[in-house]
């Protein structure tokens, strides 16, 4: 009985994994085929590797620029929102702020709105108002980093709050008694204990910024274009370069996979942190 159910669940999960992973596999298959082979009868298994798409992408200066932009924007944004979110949660959990539950909820509502809502106002503001002389935030990396705060900061506050709530305030007080300043309390006690939660927040916000398409597509032209928006440039009026697109997609996937596998165990630790704390 027991053995049978183990087998059943094994088969079930293998099937589920195959179904979910198949598109990714197919993406890979497309990326290593020459364009002429794409529309022939599909083969399920690879017979040969065609690396030209990869070479094309890697030697393309524009695409390399996009990749760099994506990296800077998502890392910059993740660091910024995690830092700000951490400090906000510290204040929310440690100080007697009037109406702090309302502040918390209000922050979350920003995340609930569909991103498209922010599109038009942000575009107009960035082109006409957020400018100093000739410098405007439109089509800059810093501009994107700031824009992503709209969605990522609420998210960071939301994920970090249980973590900080779970760290007993007695520890803060003990540290104050031991002669620590507020900053020392944070750096010596609160932050080290919040590390799993911080890691999870960093990662999830990073992945969000890395994958974001809509805002990046509208608020950048050339200088700050990211990899996801770069993808769409391969759909042109003269045809679609499927192979190159697939290759770029693979490149978009890889960092997310790496980040996920690195912090996978922190996710579990982070999500249960508040609960297991005595």
């Amino acid at each position, binding site marked *: 009985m027991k053995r049978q159910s183990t087998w059943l669940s094994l088969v079930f999960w293998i099937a589920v994994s195959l179904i979910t992973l198949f598109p990714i596999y197919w993406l890979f298959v497309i990326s290593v085929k020459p364009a002429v082979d794409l529309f022939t009868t599909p083969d399920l298994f690879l017979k040969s590797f065609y690396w030209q798409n990869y070479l094309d992408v890697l030697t393309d200066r524009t695409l390399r620029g996009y990749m760099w932009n994506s990296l800077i924007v998502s890392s910059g944004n993740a660091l910024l929102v995690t830092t700000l979110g951490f400090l906000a949660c510290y204040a929310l959990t440690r100080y007697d702020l009037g109406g702090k539950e309302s502040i918390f909820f209000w922050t979350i509502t920003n995340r609930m709105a569909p991103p498209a809502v922010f599109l038009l106002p942000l575009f107009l503001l960035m082109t006409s108002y957020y400018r100093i002389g000739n410098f405007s935030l439109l089509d800059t990396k810093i501009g994107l980093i700031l824009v992503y705060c709209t969605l990522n900061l609420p998210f960071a506050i939301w994920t970090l709050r249980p973590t900080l709530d779970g760290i*007993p305030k*007695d*520890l803060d*007080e*003990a*540290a*104050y*008694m*031991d*002669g*620590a*300043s507020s900053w*020392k309390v944070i750096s*010596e*006690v609160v932050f*080290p*204990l919040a590390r799993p939660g911080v890691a999870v927040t960093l990662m999830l916000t990073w992945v969000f910024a890395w994958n974001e398409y809509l805002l990046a597509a509208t608020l950048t032209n050339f200088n700050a274009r990211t990899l996801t928006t770069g993808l769409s440039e391969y759909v042109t009026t003269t045809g679609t370069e499927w192979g190159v697109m697939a290759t770029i997609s693979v490149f978009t996937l890889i960092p997310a996979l790496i980040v996920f596998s690195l912090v996978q165990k922190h996710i579990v630790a982070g999500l249960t942190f508040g609960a297991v704390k005595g």
Partner: protein
Amino acid sequence: MADVSIKDVVKRYGSLQVMHGVNVDIADGEFVVLVGPSGCGKSTLLRMIAGLEAISDGTIEIGGRVVNDVPPKGRDIAMVFQSYALYPHKTVGDNIGFPLKMAKRPKQEIDDKVGRAADILDLTKYLDRYPRALSGGQRQRVAMGRAIVREPKVFLFDEPLSNLDAKLRVTMRVEIKELHQRLNTTIVYVTHDQIEAMTMADKIVVMRDGRVEQIGTPLDLYDNPQNVFVGGFIGSPSMNFIHGHIRDQGGKHFVSDEGLHLPLPETSASDGQAVSYGIRPEHIGIGDSGIRMKVVVTEPTGSETQVFARSGDDLIDAVVKDRISARPGDEVGFIIDPARVHLFDRETEQRII
């Protein structure tokens, strides 16, 4: 080392006042215990001395300096929390050394002092362990190590033993007392356990509902409770109280509402005055003479026996060293020494004798 002087201290949370003008003087090197029932404001007072809680009104002086606006860091005091509040991500050694690290002492000095504190508290073996791998008593000692390592002017303890089992509590009680004799630092110690208060304190402050009820040495509080509350709170098992009146018929004596006649010492109480008659169980003897009482329950503990007995609706308990053969339902004589009787006014609950 320093004395602590608490003057007319008031604490308000918004419009809610929880401390109503508290005055306590603590001499240099004294072991003072704040005791009282749950919610009476012991922790709040301690945290005001620590600087973790703002003082709404009045002043607190440490070593002659008013510290109302001084943050904890500047008060040179150490505190042991009920939860111990050990830093879970630091080793025992780093926990104990943390105050010195915050004071930016040189590494060598930190190591020396941590070593010495660990030695005093018998923690040398555990310096590299993390708090989660320690027993309750060991954690308790680490928390004390963290407090003594900096040689502060004053130690504050907030119910440090309440998470330990009964036996360990007795051991730690002795250890804390020993530590005090060794370091001679002023200690303010909070507990709701009157036995802890009696055994450890040089001076006890009994609190109720944000007010001080009485301050004195343990024996002073035991012998001369100023009111019904202190009489009932100090001493275990607690004092018997019987409601009744004074009768003056050629010599005063006490008559309970149930008609029980009890002896009195010399008193200024007047005929007909409504009073509460207080007598401690250990000041009642059992014999063939005395007031006739019917035994309800006997509780032998080996070293002594507690006897609950009834006369009418008055229930009185006595504690005697002898083994008692009386069984429930039997009649025994309760012998009360008038010199040990406490008398309180029924209205004001204040002491008469």
